[in-house]
């Protein structure tokens, strides 16, 4: 786990309030140099702890369907299946899990027909896939897209 000190926390707090604040403004508010703010932000981003970003609404990307897929996969094939499924563009979340299913993925698709096609043509055909359980959300009532997993760049 990376070290996040008091100054990092203060920079993160100011940018969480307003992500369009410039480094110069943040530096002035904290009484440090602009270079310091820039260096701190670069380190946090490179280590995958914090980033400023622009997110898109699903609607503006013509995403009209989503699904949680839970897969039951023969253990010998699990790693290959995970690589293939997670590399699909429409896959937004992928993880190995414990229990009845050993892999989960979240998919974002233009519509339900496309979703059915991906499951049928790209996932169920993979060697070792026994079963795919599909759960289709119709609406999100909460989504904290500011609290995520980031992977080092």
């Amino acid at each position: 786990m990376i070290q996040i000190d008091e100054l990092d926390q203060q920079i993160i707090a100011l940018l969480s309030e307003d992500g369009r604040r410039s480094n110069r403004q943040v530096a002035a508010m904290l009484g440090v140099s602009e270079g310091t703010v820039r260096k701190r932000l670069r380190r946090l981003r490179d280590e995958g702890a914090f980033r400023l970003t622009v997110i898109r609404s699903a609607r503006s990307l013509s995403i009209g369907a989503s699904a949680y897929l839970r897969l039951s996969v023969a253990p010998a094939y699990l790693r290959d299946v995970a690589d293939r499924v997670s590399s699909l563009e429409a896959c937004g979340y992928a993880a190995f899990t414990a229990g009845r299913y050993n892999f989960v993925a979240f998919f974002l698709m233009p519509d339900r027909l496309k979703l059915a096609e991906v499951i049928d043509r790209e996932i169920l055909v993979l060697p070792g896939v026994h079963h795919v359980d599909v759960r289709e959300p119709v609406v999100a009532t909460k989504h904290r897209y500011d609290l995520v997993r980031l992977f080092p760049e």
Partner: protein
Amino acid sequence: MMTDDLDEKIIGLLQEDPQRANKNIAEILSITETLVATRIRGLIETNVIRFVAQRDIAAFGEDVIAHADIYVEGRAAWDVAQDIGQIASVSSVVILTGSPQLIVEIHAADGPGLARIIESEISTVAGIERIELCVSLDIIKYRSDVAEF
């Protein structure tokens, strides 16, 4: 709202660097700074983009992500979703067409932390008949640039 080519170019530049000055975008695209500002304001107001500061939960001490299927009984799923949404450790709540009625994403520091959230925060919400938990052991992809808003 549909975006045009210019909108997409501006979005692309902002995704590379969200702190990029409007002046810089204007120079790259050979348009006026006023037009850049107008377009960005339009994209925000019509809910195409949002500027967001994202934290990695693991870097802040929360290593466990679990998805809970919530089976609702004797109460509207929407009402249960509202109550569960009040819990800080619950990062997302979706409503499904069938059963289970809800899937919620939970962030926890560790196993005991997750158990405590399930037992003393989620289970106390009225209308929950059953909870089935799916704990992520190893996350290999987490795309965080798209959301419903």
